[in-house]
């Protein structure tokens, strides 16, 4: 009996492989996606997937695009770039998708780029680093702000407060490492001196040694932390425990409600650059982003009963830019769609105002970031 049931499992697996191949007959527009729904980057990939599902369902209910339904074909790379590469091949060669929206982290995106370039398929990445769109790659676009923009925004704000000697405290993750590189370059450009430059591991639970060193460094006027996930919250707590009173800045990677919850009272006074989405209800009435940001926020939290994060917003922008491009191209012809994406002008998304061009495949400028400060456990806009 046991062997019998095993045989069934193997047969089922074989049928599953076969079934995925035979589902080509219908004629929907296929949107492919490889996201990190599990693994260390799950907190990014999970809201991205939910957002894509939510809005594709919604668009289909309203009649689809070009009179055709949208079909989402998505795979989970488990936060492993090598798997993302394999699934991208599957999307291109087997599922024959019309566009790829996805690639949660920079590593996954970079491992997919050679494939989409070769297949000449439009690709909108949801990952952060500058290398994705610089140098410009013909078929590759991205929606999130870059680490370089975050550093620039933070330094802008510091300069307004006459803080020019700062300590950089970055995470050794991909996000933090890339952020460190861009921050160092931006500091030189903007006349900021890095008097201390420390790092921490993404799973560290105590950052007091590095913070003590920063505290004892002469001349430090402010601290800039570049990290994701839980690490930055630990920094906040240790910062208060050590009684450091210098202004504390974080990067855009922690822009979620979770960050405030995890840090508790230690988050008070912390500043960070973030997309308007987080402060949707606090935006001025005439702000062009207000309707988009509040609309997305409402739809997402009603459906999934959880707070929005800017990461899901990136997926929203990616999908909307793709849909808009299909409409303007009037077909799913890959070259025409690519040209249409590149010609995106004045699209207002959750991330900001997008103006793509042949030399800019992200299309966001500094105005896309708002400087936020945490006051009384809530975000407030800094002018």
């Amino acid at each position: 009996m046991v062997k019998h049931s095993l045989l069934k499992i193997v047969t089922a697996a074989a049928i599953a492989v076969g079934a995925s191949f035979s589902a080509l007959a219908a004629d929907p527009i296929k949107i492919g996606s490889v996201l990190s729904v599990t693994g260390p980057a799950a907190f990014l990939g999970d809201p991205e997937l939910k957002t894509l599902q939510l809005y594709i369902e919604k668009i289909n209910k309203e009649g689809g695009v070009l009179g055709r339904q949208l079909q989402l074909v998505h795979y989970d790379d488990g936060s492993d770039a090598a798997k993302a590469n394999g699934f991208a091949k599957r999307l291109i060669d087997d599922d024959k998708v019309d566009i790829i929206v996805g690639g949660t982290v920079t590593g996954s995106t970079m491992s997919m780029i050679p494939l989409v370039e070769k297949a000449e398929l439009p690709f909108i990445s949801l990952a952060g680093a500058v290398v994705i769109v610089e140098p410009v790659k013909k078929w590759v676009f991205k929606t999130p702000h870059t680490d370089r923009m975050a550093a620039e925004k933070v330094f802008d704000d510091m300069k307004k407060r006459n803080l020019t000697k700062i300590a950089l405290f970055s995470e050794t993750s991909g996000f933090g490492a890339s952020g460190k590189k861009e921050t160092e370059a931006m500091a030189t450009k903007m006349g900021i001196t890095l008097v201390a430059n420390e790092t921490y591991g993404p799973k560290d639970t105590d950052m007091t040694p590095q913070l003590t060193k920063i505290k004892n460094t002469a001349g430090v006027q402010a601290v800039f932390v570049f990290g994701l996930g839980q690490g930055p919250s630990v920094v906040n707590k240790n910062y208060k425990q050590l009684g450091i009173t210098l202004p504390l800045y974080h990067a855009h990677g922690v822009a979620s409600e979770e960050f405030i919850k995890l840090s508790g009272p230690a988050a008070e006074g912390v500043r960070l650059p973030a997309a308007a989405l987080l402060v949707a209800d606090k935006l001025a009435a005439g702000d062009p982003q207000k309707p988009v940001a509040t609309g997305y926020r409402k739809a997402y939290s009603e459906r999934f009963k959880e707070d929005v994060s800017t990461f899901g917003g990136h997926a929203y922008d990616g999908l909307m830019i793709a849909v808009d491009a299909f409409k303007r191209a009037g077909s799913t012809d890959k070259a025409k769609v690519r040209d249409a994406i590149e010609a995106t002008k004045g699209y207002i998304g959750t991330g900001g105002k997008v103006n793509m061009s042949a030399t800019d495949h992200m299309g966001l400028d500094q105005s896309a970031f708002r400087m936020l400060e945490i006051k009384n456990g809530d975000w407030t806009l800094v002018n």
Partner: protein
Amino acid sequence: MSGVRRHYSLMLLAAVLLLLPLVLPNNFYYDIVIRMAINAIIALGLNLLIGFAGQISLGHAGFIGIGAYASAILPTHFGWHPLLAMAAGAAIASSIAAILARPIFRLKGQYLAMATLGMGIIIAIVIKNEAAYTGGPDGMPVAPIGLMGFEIAGEKQWYWVLAATLLFSFWAAKNLIDSPFGRALRALHGSEVAAQVMGVDIVRYKVAIFVLSAFFASLMGSVTAHYIGFVTPNIADFFHSIELVTMVVIGGMASIYGSLIGAVLLTALPQALSTFEGWETVVFGSILMTCMIFMPKGLVPTLAARFGRNGREDP
């Protein structure tokens, strides 16, 4: 195992590899078969160490990482020829294995597992942190490989390269196991004291087999890097090591074809299960558990004992 049977099974494998392109519908299926072949060769090398010599290694992905990053770094940063880089990677991995083998193989059981685990993790950390050369956690692109003006490109060419490599590895492994060297390894597995009494230099054999499997792993790391065209530190990850050990155990320890079946199964399952929408890890885990509960010796040895006519003992 008679000589005729040996050739029979190799010819069967060759026939399958020859006929497979007739049924593979597109490049994606080629891709899966190529990944299966790569994993099978690595699992084979690991099986020689774990199944035949009875020594565990939980750091094998480290050697794969060395090969992969040698093929990525040396041509990109130093302008080496990819083949030379591949050889250098294999040489580095083998040397590390040779140097570490003597102290490591003084240990047994869980202590040996811990030591190899530590070694693998250290290699992964070095790769992750030497960002100037390795690109850090985001990884780096790898130049294509070629020989005398021909570049191996596209799934179909890689398929034939790996089919040939796979066949050669199986032939070599079979011969190795039936040689005095292989018999010494199995003696070692059975009882180290008995093997020593019979005149087997156990340290020398343990070191030799560890170096050999590290060599295989590094070469296949290089091949993976060139094939995918991109490497990330995940390739040297602890979880990758575990995945490889799982292939060996599921397929069947001390079974050449067990390595093949284990690699095929563990490469195909994640793709086949991706339709389960978020439940794939649960289904994957329960399949592995079912296999281990009902077939603790692995698929191939259990099935061979069940259906085999060659009079092997029933467990």
